[in-house]
């Protein structure tokens, strides 16, 4: 959660089921930041489609834990 907030430069509190679309930051550049963060922090190489398929933060979390 914190890593996600850092990567996208988001402030504020929210829950893991938050819809990613609610964030203005979840745009093409946000995807890049997230992709880079997943790669760096979790050694997880996700592709563009996998990332775009994530609707909530929980989906993103699941992608990393797979």
């Amino acid at each position, binding site marked *: 959660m914190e890593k996600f907030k850092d990567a996208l430069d988001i402030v504020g509190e929210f829950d893991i089921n938050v819809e990613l679309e609610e964030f203005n930051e979840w745009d093409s*550049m946000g995807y890049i930041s997230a992709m880079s963060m997943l790669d760096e922090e979790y050694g997880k190489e996700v592709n563009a489609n996998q990332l775009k398929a994530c609707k909530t933060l929980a989906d993103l979390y699941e992608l990393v834990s797979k």
Partner: protein
Amino acid sequence: MAIGELKNVAIKGISCCLPDNKVLNTDYYEKFGKELVDKVIKMTGINTRYTAIKEQCASDLAYTAAERLIEKLHWDKGTIKSLIFLTQSPDYRKPSTACVLQHRLQLSEYCAAFDVNLGCSAFIYGTFFGSLMMSNNDINRMLVLIGDAGSINISPEDHSSILLHGSAGSAIALEYDPEVNNSIKYSLKTDGSRFKSLYTPAGAFRNAYTARKELYLHDDGITRSDYHNFMNGLDIFQFSITKVPKTIKEFLKHYKLENDMFDYLLLHQPNKFIVKKVAQKIGFPSEKTPINVDKFGNCSGSSIPLLIVDNIKTEAENGKIRLLASGFGVGLSWGVMDLTLEHIAIPDIIYSNEYYTEG
């Protein structure tokens, strides 16, 4: 595997020419809004770029770079037996722009000339081609020219492309030399399955009857025509930070090379973020990974020549430096190279708006 070693070739000189037309990304505040532009600048690190003026083609930049290099090397033009031009912005659909350049440069008829349609990987492929062509010793001097001036290929409404691209031309002089000890090692790769990640749908033969000339809103939210550049930024980014470092590591392992055997890592410069990321993933120190995308933008195949001419000129002119280089992008096409520069000729960067008036 397209992985190998070429001997008896010396790089004698490298030069670059940019349009004398500096553009500041902050000039686009009014057009795209300050917030968006600042975000792009922050993500890419690109502050300024040099873009071709309307009448100017990639070949004009490459021509000027070539003339200045030939002059600096004091080469007799009659001794240049080949000229290849790597570009994705040719003068015409036919003939090869290399033929026009052979004429403009007044090279002899005993000169093999042709174009190669490659972009960001052009420096690696061009050096490979050139070195290969000289292995017989019948061609003992040649010019590898690279250039792209993509401004007309980019929609004026496309912030995702327009703020990133710069125009540039470069020239590399190669000479057959049996005394050279350092071989040029290379690895070349292609993933054509992703050709649509970075492409221009119209302007050639495919889609000729269906292409739309007018600007219209595409699914990705960008307004452009079918004659404009399309980029799936996320896909290209993912490719750049995974496949590229993987290939570099594979190359080093194949030849039992270590990072510390190289003086510099020269990477194609799409944006600051990718350059840093690739260097970091292969464990190359950032102080030995020069960056110039902040000043010039993404200059396609001329990014690596620009690093040599702008960042390590003195060392390449006065000593011997070993470089690990990688160019990657449109195709998708990418390559890695181990090359050594020793006392090469490097004219200062040329800024010019000259163009061919007989075209």
